[in-house]
């Protein structure tokens, strides 16, 4: 039995003659087995066809043995790459990634979270910490996520494993976070879908709060987990899950890309109509004035700065795998930073638009109720969308139509973000198992959909959602971000190589400021936010819920995440190139990019000149 492959200089894998070899990777194909009854060298491989091919072509006693064996290796390597697992999908063009990433980033938080956070933290003055956070945390982590995903060409667990073998649990932590968010985010979209229907007759009447918590959700009096299902929620929740599973089963290009190309433009059009209409209502400009009126004294409060960093961080969908996963599907030669800047600005531009629309509407509500905006309750989150907005739609001329548009925009924004979260889980499971797109989409859909229905389609759904969302976001996601930055920057010292990867491909070059942002500024600020959050939950609890409920739902979810992360890391990868993958060299990528851009520019110039090919 050969101990070393003379042609390739790599140790051969020891395999007994006649042994059926399964699960071989391209690197393993250098193994060879000498048959007992003849001099023919048989290269072991799991498929009989290739075995015969090689034994027929290679004879150690004949001339040209080394040459023949080498050719045989090449055939086998090629055959293995093609036969062992379905090829990983990629986005078609650069625009597909940009649209998908914007669709993911622009979600419910942009519409219902940003306006409230800005208003409560200095109004117009909040813009200053917001922009600082955008430049020093949002963009840098977005680039970092993109670089990890693109360089290592995999969803979080495998990407982190390729970065460093010990980092795989961090990837599974991000997948676990995405899975939990998937279970409850779908419910909010289901509520919005229900309210699209209710808007036609403004069925909440004069008591939107009572309608939402009582008539619609039938909210249980005491916190706890009930299994009393609410049919109205159940129906729309099933619609959301079936739609999501169908889209995801179609794959990246035929499903996700096509869905995003419909939902994103539709969302922008619908929201522009809402904003323009809201600005024409009486009292609207007082509301906008309240939103932008700067309180510069607030800038001296560290809490305002932390709120800005916290918001930017959630708004960009970073550190729980979405941007990392989406970037892994970009083609090898893609302008990462250039595309990322478009995504980041688009997200924030939409947020400002949402702020204007929401506060114009709140200005109208305050005007019609003859109160100040300060006196209004429920200026952000679920309360804003499902209690305050229905109230103002009741008072608004054309409120039924505007209600359909508003809740329709929530469905559109939420659904495209839901798909991106779904993709983190399916992409990771697919890397691990090598399953087909349809199989993994249906499996994950059922695995997340069933607990989603059982936990949130009931009379206790809102309470469970409230606690789970707080813990998953403030500890699960923030913890993931801190761990990612500390491990990548300080433990594995991978920032220089990731920066080289980004700069080799991107039209926008990243300098030392980016390095400082991801190694020093952002980890420290996020660590402060994380520690404050944990300390607050330990000492004060959350939302007035009893300790047993917070421990079970909140801390229980965090404990499950930790167990899941390590348990999943012990399973072997079935993806063909999981172990043998070698990242591209930045120099080679840079040369390829430069050559291709030169050719593209020359072709474009040729087309523009008279007589040029068109």
């Amino acid at each position, binding site marked *: 039995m050969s101990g070393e492959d003379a042609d390739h200089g790599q140790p051969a894998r020891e395999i007994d003659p006649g042994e059926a070899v399964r699960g071989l990777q391209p690197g393993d194909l250098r193994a060879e087995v000498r048959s007992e009854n003849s001099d023919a060298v048989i290269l072991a491989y799991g498929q009989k066809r290739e075995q015969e091919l090689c034994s027929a072509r290679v004879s150690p006693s004949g001339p040209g043995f080394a040459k023949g064996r080498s050719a045989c290796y090449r055939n086998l390597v090629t055959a293995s790459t093609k036969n062992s697992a379905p090829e990983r999908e990629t986005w078609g063009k650069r625009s597909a990634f940009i649209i998908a990433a914007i669709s993911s980033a622009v979600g419910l938080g942009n519409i219902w979270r940003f306006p409230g956070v800005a208003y409560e933290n200095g109004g*117009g003055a909040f813009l200053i910490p917001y922009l600082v956070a955008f430049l020093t945390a949002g963009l840098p982590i977005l680039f970092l996520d993109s670089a990890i995903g693109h360089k290592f060409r995999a969803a979080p667990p495998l990407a982190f494993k390729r970065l460093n073998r010990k980092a795989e649990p961090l990837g599974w932590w991000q997948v676990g976070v995405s899975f939990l968010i998937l279970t409850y985010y779908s419910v909010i979209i289901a509520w919005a879908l229900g309210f699209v229907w209710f808007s036609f007759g403004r069925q909440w009447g004069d008591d939107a709060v009572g309608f939402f918590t009582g008539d619609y959700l039938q909210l249980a009096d005491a916190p706890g987990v009930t299994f009393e299902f609410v049919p109205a929620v159940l129906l729309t929740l099933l619609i959301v899950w079936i739609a999501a599973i169908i889209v995801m089963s179609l794959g990246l290009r035929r499903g996700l890309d096509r869905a995003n190309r419909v939902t994103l433009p539709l969302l922008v059009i619908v929201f522009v109509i809402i904003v323009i209409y809201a600005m024409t209502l009486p009292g609207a400009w007082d509301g906008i004035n309240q939103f932008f009126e700067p309180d510069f004294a607030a800038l001296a409060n560290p809490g305002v700065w932390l709120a800005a960093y916290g918001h930017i961080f959630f708004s960009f969908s970073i550190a729980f795998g979405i941007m990392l996963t989406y970037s892994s599907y*970009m083609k090898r030669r893609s302008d990462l930073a250039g595309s990322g800047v478009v995504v980041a*600005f688009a997200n924030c531009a939409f947020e400002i638009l949402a702020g204007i629309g929401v506060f114009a509407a709140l200005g109208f509500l305050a005007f019609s109720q003859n109160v100040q905006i300060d006196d209004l309750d429920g200026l952000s989150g679920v309360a804003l969308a499902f209690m305050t907005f229905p109230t103002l739609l009741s008072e608004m001329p054309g409120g039924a139509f505007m209600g359909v548009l508003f809740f329709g925009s929530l469905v559109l924004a939420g659904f495209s973000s839901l798909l991106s979260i779904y993709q983190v889980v399916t992409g990771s499971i697919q890397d691990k198992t090598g399953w087909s797109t349809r199989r993994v989409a249906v499996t994950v859909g059922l695995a997340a959909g069933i607990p989603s229905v059982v936990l949130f389609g009931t009379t206790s759904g809102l309470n469970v959602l409230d606690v789970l969302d707080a813990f998953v976001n403030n500890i699960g996601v923030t913890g993931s971000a801190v761990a990612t930055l500390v491990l990548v920057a300080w433990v594995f010292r991978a920032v220089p190589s990731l920066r080289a990867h980004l700069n080799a491909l991107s039209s926008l070059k990243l300098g030392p400021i980016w390095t400082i942002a991801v190694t020093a500024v952002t980890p420290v600020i996020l660590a402060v936010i994380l520690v404050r959050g944990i300390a607050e939950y330990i000492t004060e609890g959350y939302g007035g819920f009893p300790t047993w409920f917070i421990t079970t739902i909140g801390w229980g979810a965090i404990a499950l995440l930790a167990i899941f992360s390590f348990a999943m890391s012990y399973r072997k990868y079935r993806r063909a190139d999981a172990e043998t993958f070698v990242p591209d060299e930045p120099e080679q990528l840079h040369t390829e990019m430069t050559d291709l851009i030169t050719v593209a520019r020359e072709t474009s110039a040729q087309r523009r000149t008279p007589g040029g090919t068109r």
Partner: protein
Amino acid sequence: MTTSALIMMVLSIGILWGGLAWAILRLRKHPDVSGAGDDE
């Protein structure tokens, strides 16, 4: 609207929507070569 609120509104819209326009124009100047050659 008060002057300070108006300034903050113009600034925020200018920076964020202006930034988006700048980023898109910048990207358009750099051709998309991701699909060229023998890529995956």
